[in-house]
């Protein structure tokens, strides 16, 4: 969590679309509201293309987290990687979106 905060304050790049993925403003607010003991999952990065693809960390982090604002709870999913390898020059967020709960009927 601390690494994510430092990297985001150094250089944040975030993929935003017009549907699900949210903007930098929402991500920065989300970071402020996250608990400090966050433990993400790590997976090998699939591609060397994209922003900082070659110099970025070879593993991606991803996590889902529920936050509460004025008593309203919502879950968000976040996936990205730090750049550069073994360094906190910045972070590239490949996906930051609301996690919709699927109702089984």
């Amino acid at each position, binding site marked *: 969590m601390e690494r994510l905060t430092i990297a985001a304050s150094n*250089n*944040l*790049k*975030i*993929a*935003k*679309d*017009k549907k*699900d*993925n*949210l*903007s*930098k*403003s*929402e991500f*920065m*607010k*989300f970071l*402020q*509201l996250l*608990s400090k003991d966050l433990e993400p999952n790590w997976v090998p990065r*699939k*591609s060397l*293309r*994209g*922003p900082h*693809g070659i110099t970025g960390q070879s593993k991606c982090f991803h996590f889902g987290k529920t*936050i*509460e*604002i*004025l*008593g*309203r709870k*919502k879950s*968000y999913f976040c996936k990205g990687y730090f750049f550069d390898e073994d360094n906190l020059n910045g972070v590239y967020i*490949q*996906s930051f*979106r609301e996690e919709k709960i699927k109702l089984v009927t």
Partner: protein
Amino acid sequence: MANCEHENLILKKTSDTFFGETFDFKAEVCQDCGAYIWDDSVENQFNDWLGVLYQKKRTKFQVQFFLSKNAKDILEEFSNNYPGIPNTTILKIFVAVYLDIIEPNENYKKRFDKVIRGEIFESFQKGKFEKFKIQLKPNAFREYTAMAHLAGISLASMVEESVERMLALCVETDQKLREFWIQNIKKEFNRYLKVA
């Protein structure tokens, strides 16, 4: 595409909608899914655009909300302690203190469980309502809009509820909450007031 790795990026002109207005800008756009990369360059373009929007359409940055008669009476009483300070300034500081200081602090947030179950807060949902308006600066508007978006509510609802929570707290009679108000929150209010 939710799982796109955004491998196929090219720099081009694109647009997106913010606050009901079209923002035209240049960014790296993914040819596979249409997502764009929000980096420092887009951030600079956005800030410039937001500044121009603020100059041209200042009313867009106004937030209108409603307070009950009881809430209004408490606001009037509270503002008597701050002669010369307009109510709109007090309301803006209430919003800033609640959203910037209290919401991100789990310990502070917990104290409000009791406040919102109390009679005073409940009274804010009844009776005659009066319209209030506050004018926000672009950065505050952007930040609070993002927060409301994350919460899944409108900016007006978030502002209204933040003000109600602060008004209910400042007249709390519960000893512990009274101390919390005086020792923690009122200090923050006065700190914000200095720079308002």
